[in-house]
C-alpha cells in the first residue's frame, strides 16, 4: 500500500498557508483583499498544494503579485518583505514537492539545503527594499527599480558562488 507521505502533507500545508499569507499579510497595514479574492486565491492555493509542478502555482503567485500591484501604488511598506518571504516559502515548498511523487518523502537534507537557499535569496528582497527606502525622495522611481534589478543580479551571482551544490556541508 503506497500512500502520501506525512512530510508531503506538511509541504502541502506550507504551500497553502504561505500563499494565503502572501495575500493576507497586508491586513494589519490596511491592505485588505475582497472576500472574493480570498476565495479565489484559497482555491488556487489548495490546487497548488496538490499539483506543485503545475502551472496553477505560477498563476496563483502571479495573481497575488498583480493584486499587490493594484493596491500598493508607489508605497514601499515593510510588509512587502513578509509577502516576499511568503512567496519564497511557497515557491521552495512547491519545488521540494515537485522532486517526486507524493509517495516520496521529502528528504530532510534537501529540505535543509533549500531552506538555506530560500533564506539567502530572500536577502535580495531585503536589499532592494533597503535601497529603495534609503534613496526614497532622492531619485527617480526608474532609478530605484534599476538599482533593485542590479542588486538582484549581483545577489544571485554572489549566492551562486556562496551556496553549496550537491548538498556539500549540509547535514
Amino acid at each position, binding site marked *: 500500500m503506497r500512500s502520501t507521505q506525512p512530510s508531503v502533507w506538511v509541504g502541502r500545508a506550507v504551500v497553502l498557508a504561505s500563499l494565503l499569507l502572501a495575500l493576507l499579510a497586508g491586513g494589519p497595514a490596511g491592505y485588505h483583499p475582497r472576500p472574493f479574492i480570498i476565495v479565489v486565491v484559497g482555491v488556487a492555493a489548495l490546487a497548488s498544494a496538490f499539483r506543485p509542478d503545475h502551472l496553477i502555482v505560477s498563476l496563483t503567485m502571479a495573481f497575488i503579485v498583480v493584486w*499587490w500591484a493594484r493596491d500598493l501604488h508607489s508605497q514601499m511598506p515593510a510588509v512587502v518583505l513578509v509577502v516576499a518571504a511568503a512567496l519564497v516559502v511557497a515557491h521552495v515548498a512547491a519545488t521540494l514537492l515537485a522532486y517526486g511523487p507524493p509517495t516520496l518523502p521529502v528528504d530532510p537534507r534537501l529540505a535543509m539545503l533549500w531552506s538555506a537557499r530560500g533564506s539567502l535569496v530572500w536577502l535580495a528582497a531585503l536589499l532592494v527594499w533597503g535601497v529603495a527606502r534609503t534613496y526614497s525622495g532622492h531619485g527617480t522611481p526608474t532609478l530605484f*527599480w534599476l538599482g533593485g534589478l542590479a542588486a538582484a543580479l549581483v545577489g544571485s551571482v554572489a549566492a551562486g558562488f556562496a551556496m553549496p551544490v550537491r548538498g556539500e556541508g549540509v547535514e
Partner: protein
Amino acid sequence: MTGKPSRWHATSSLERSLIVGGVGVALALAAGRPALVVLVAPLLVLGALGLLHRPTSEPRLFATLGHWQLHEGQGTRVRLEAYDLDDVEHVTQVISPRPFVAVRPPAGALGHLLADGGQIASLEISPRRWGRRVVGAEKVALTTSWAGYRWGPIALVGREISVLPTVSHLRSGGEAPQPIGLIGAHRSRRDGNGTEFSSIRPFHAGDRLRRINWRVSLRQGTLHVESTRAEEDTAVLLIVDALADYGQSGGVGSTESSLDVSVRAAASLAEQYLSGGDRVSVRVLSPGGEYAGFGTGTRHLRRILVLLSHIRPGMPREVEIDQIDFRATAGAVVVVLSPMLSEPLATATVRLVRRGLPVIVVDPLPADSTPSVYADSDEHLSELAWRMRLLDRSHLLAQLSASGCPVVPWNGPRTLEEVLRRLARRGQLPQVGGS
C-alpha cells in the same frame, strides 16, 4: 536494463521563477510600482541561478540486479549505475509496484542528494511468492543544482527472474516401502550388505568370514552367518496438481493458496529425498506440462525448483489427465499433491495404486478456501456449488483411502514419515494373490 534516451528540460520551479519574476518586473515598469521588484527579486535570483546551472552533460543510466534467481523471501538490490552525472544534484527513483514483490523503502520511492563520489542509493526488493516475477522496473529523474533542469523521468525496463519456492532443510526419517535401487539409505526387503540385522542362516559360498556367528555355528555344528538388509535408494515421483489454484495467497509467511502448499511441499520433498541420495521426478499437471525425469544431486534439485517456479495454473492442453503416462518406475513412491477436485486425476491415482505402487495423496486445500467466481455471479449459488464440490471431493478422498491410498494434509516436511512407515510395514506383510 536501460531506459529510453532522455534530455534535459526546464523544471516547473525554474518556469515559475521566471514567470512570476517577469510578471512582477513588467508590472513594476508599466505601472510604476517599485515595491513589486521587492516581491519578485528572490524569485528572479532563483531563476537566474537555475539558468546559471544549465547542464551540458548527457547522463546514462543502467539498472542492475544483484541476483537473477532468488528463493521466496530473499532479497536483492536494484543498483543504479550512472555515468556523466557532473551536473546532477538530486536523484529520484520510483519503483513500479508489482504483485508479491516487497520493496524497501516501502513507499517504493527514493530521493537523495548525490554524494560527492556520485554514489546512488539502491532500492531493495524481495519477492514474496514463487513464480516468475518482473523486478527492477523503475523511473528515474535527475535534477540539477537550484532545481533548474530535470532529466527524465525515464522508465528503466525490469527483468524477469525466477523466484524459487522455499525448501525446508530437514532430513526425513521415513523409509521407502519398496526401495529398488543401488546404494541409498532405505532398508530393502532383500538381504545385502547393510547394517540392519535380518536373520541367521547357514553359510553360503561367498559370505564374508566376519559375518560368521560362531556361537550359533558351534551349537548347530555347521557354519552360520548373520545376514543384513540391503540399503538402497528409492525413486520418488511427485505429481503436482496445478489445474487450479484455490484460496488466497499472501506470499511467504502469510496465507497460502492450494498451489502455494503444493509447490512448497513438492520443493521440500524433492530436497529431502535428493539430499538422501534418492532419485526424484516431478510431473506437473498444468498447461505447461512441466516435467523433470528421475535424477539425483543438487543440480537436479535446482532444475526441479526452477521447474516449480514456472508453474502457471490451468487445464493441460492437448492431453487428457487420465491418459497421462506418469512414467512411474517399479518401486517408486508416488506422492500426489492435489486437492482432488478433479475426477480424472483421482482415476489416474487409483490406476497407479492398482499397479502396486505406494501412492500417497497430500491434500493442500486450505480449510477456508473458496473458488474464484465471476463478479456478476450469484453469491448464494456459487457457495452452494462449492459445497457440492467439497462433498464430491470428500467422497473421492474416501474412495481413494479405501483403495489403499493414504490421504494426508500437508503439515510440514515430516508429513509423510508416519504414512511411509505404515506403507513399509504393510509391504512386508505376506501378500495373497494379486488385485
